[in-house]
């Protein structure tokens, strides 16, 4: 039976054109961007506010925090893991840096060193996650969940009230614009491009896919599996730190509610973007789509003045519909 099936599918594959193969391979990406165009198109027709340049620019800027977190989450999910601690890592970075600013009288000269320090903190926390996971061989979900709880405690110890004393120059990260476009949007676009290059053109990026596809085969293929895993969590911590630093600039205070609920949103963005939660499959281009979709939806709901409770409900449906639509041919076949 197996033999005939293999032969049949091989001949089907050979007869189908390259374009068909491309569409099939990237089906989830076509789907997500189709959905974005559909929703944005509808909103453009029915809402005067939506199509204004300032709203579009606003959406792009709103997508940055989720974008940074979803990039980190993508690295981890590609390896077949999950990082529950990213919101708390972002928060820890934001609160630590805010405290230090406050401690040193809002000295603008400290902006660059403290940004670097924040990145170091994020990378270190990610490294701890990675080492715990590769040393204990425990489920990444549980390990990062535990780390998230510890960090939640640490954050509560740092402050339960907003920390004032961020130098006003620091707020320019959020505010500076060239014309109507915020500089941070341009920087974010460059980050997305670099991450795309990383996942497709750097050996470590390829290794993430191999480890997620099958750690056993990756190991047999001379890939250093543990080292790859640690790197994935380090990258997750790195991007969480960037997100924390960005939130700090946006809020202007060290907010004890920084990134609340963002772990869940990042996982949703990654899943809706078509990266397999089992690892090894999907593209960062899909994650970008997932981030844009969630941000646009939230923007449209706000413009339509949909009650916040119904927003959650509608969002849930979008997630379920998108994920249900991804049942790949492979899943259908084996089921």
């Amino acid at each position, binding site marked *: *039976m197996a*033999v005939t099936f293999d032969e049949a599918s091989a001949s089907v*594959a050979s007869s189908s054109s390259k374009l068909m193969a491309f569409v099939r*391979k990237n089906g989830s990406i076509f789907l997500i961007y189709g959905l974005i165009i559909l929703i944005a198109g509808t909103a453009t027709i029915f809402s005067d506010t939506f199509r204004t340049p300032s709203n579009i620019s606003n959406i792009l800027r709103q997508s940055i925090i989720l974008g940074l977190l979803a990039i980190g989450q993508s690295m981890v999910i590609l390896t077949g893991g999950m990082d529950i601690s990213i919101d708390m890592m972002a928060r820890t970075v934001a609160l630590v840096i805010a405290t230090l600013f406050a401690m040193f009288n809002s000295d603008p000269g400290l902006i660059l060193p403290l940004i670097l320090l924040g990145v170091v903190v994020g990378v270190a926390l990610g490294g701890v996650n990675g080492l715990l996971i590769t040393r204990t061989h425990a489920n990444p979900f549980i390990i990062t969940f535990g780390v998230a709880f510890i960090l939640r405690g640490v954050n509560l110890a740092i402050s339960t009230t907003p920390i004032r004393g961020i130098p006003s120059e620091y707020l320019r990260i959020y505010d500076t614009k060239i014309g109507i476009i915020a500089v941070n949007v341009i920087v974010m676009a460059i980050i997305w491009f670099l991450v795309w290059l990383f996942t497709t053109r750097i050996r470590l990026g390829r290794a993430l896919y191999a480890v997620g596809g099958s750690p*056993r085969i990756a190991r047999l293929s*001379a890939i*250093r599996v543990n080292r790859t895993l640690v790197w994935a969590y380090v990258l997750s911590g790195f991007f969480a730190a960037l997100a924390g630093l960005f939130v700090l600039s946006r809020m202007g205070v060290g907010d004890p509610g920084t990134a609340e609920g963002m772990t869940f949103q990042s996982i949703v963005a990654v899943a809706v973007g078509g990266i397999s939660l089992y690892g090894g499959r999907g593209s960062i281009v899909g994650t970008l789509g997932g981030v844009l979709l969630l941000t646009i939806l939230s923007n449209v709901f706000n413009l339509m003045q949909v009650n916040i409770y119904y927003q959650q409900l509608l969002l849930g449906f979008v997630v379920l519909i998108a994920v249900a639509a991804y049942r790949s041919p*492979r899943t259908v076949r084996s089921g």
Partner: protein
Amino acid sequence: MEASSDVSQPNGTILKLHGIDKTFGGTHALADVSFDLRGGEVHALVGENGAGKSTLIKVVTGAYFPDQGTIEVGGSEYQSLRPEQARNLGVSVVYQEFNILPELSVAENVFIGDQPRGRLNLIDMGARRKKTYELLERLGTQNSINPNELVKNLTVGEQQIVEISKALATNAHIIIMDEPSAVLPSRELERLFSVIRFLRADGHGIIYISHRLNEVFELADRVTVLKDGQLMATKNVAETNHSELVRLMVGRELTDMYPPSDNQPGDVLLEVSDLDIDGTVFGVTLHVREGEVLGLAGLGGSGRTTVCRALVGLADIKGGEVAYLGKPAPKTAGSASRVGLVLVPEDRKAYGLVLNQSMRFNLALPNLMEFVRRGVLRSRIEKQAVKRMVEDIQIKPPDPNILSDSLSGGNQQKVVIGKWLLTNPKLVIFDEPTRGIDVGAKAEIYQRIRELTYSGVGVIMASSELPELIGVSDRILVFFEGRVAGELERKDFSEEAIMRLATATEEIDVPVQGGVDL
């Protein structure tokens, strides 16, 4: 309950297969095979790998529907059986992998499907214990197995007896044993044989599949030989002997699938002495030279695969020495591949290919360092290398972007071979290089293996297919139960010679009277 009436008439035929035919795609897995089993007999089923033994068993258990032929069982005739129908008619299989729950007791396992009930429909633990004891008594094992013991505390042999008791608890009277001795250490064999004799005395019919001919002669009443899906013969064990069985099992023509071996081996690449691997391989000594193919023969579980895996650091070496290019053996698959020692593993789906990725991804995977310039993967270099390999080993369709999952088995195997050839290896270990692939792809792979030796690469090829070993190897080492049973030079190659070493049958050239006492 009907089962007991059958059991009570010893020597009556309880299962009769007539003219069974089964085709898969282009392969004739069974061609007009007839087989019968009597109550109170052990009927051995022998043949090489791929001879059709398991297909025949699956027809009896209802896993396969035959294309033609009839099955007579329980007094009726069927075109085919469904699995639950076969079970209800008293057919039960004891597989090599047991279907028992280690954390439950013997009694709980034996009656897992149908627990004895008592008052209020609660499980009657006393009755369950008593019935289990009675079953164990019927097998003569009531003194060695306690019904209350947890199964995980039992030896493998005892667990196997629990499996057999489970079959009896469902009133099975046709008991199929799929190489039951392969999983047992030799000290537990005697008890298994004794259990089987108890079953036979009880009137059950036993189909006994084994590669070990000694067991056939020790245990069976009749033996049926299959080869390439054909019924070769059914014989009374008392009227045959080892050499006749071996001749019936093998003895086929070598075709021109195999390229000639005409190159001279060079220096020694790999030298292994007194290799011990935890409880499975003992004192193995071998060497491979540049430009030669060393075949590893032996039955499943004889240690071939374990040795292959140990050489690339995938199994723990307990003792002995491995010298590769004069240095100690690499400890991991990664470091092995960096020094040109690679394994093309046995199960391509589990160890060879990331199935949900493209052919290109898989071909490139162990070679990524080769494609990096200044820290960046250069896709042009990668694409060129992949394209060269796809053309070189003729993967079809030649589209590097196709999902590995959608390739045929032969082409998947070529991708696994190709990904390792791209690393420019010095010594390639093939474990079952052609399992489950078609004849055309096989011939191409043999050709490729021979070409490797022309460029001075050394090859180790472990295989269970004798014609392939004989056709491709320059020398053959035969394994038996973790040890090297013998080495054959090309002039001495024959399927009989290999089987003789692999089944530890020494007296094949001497005609044996009655086939006893071997």
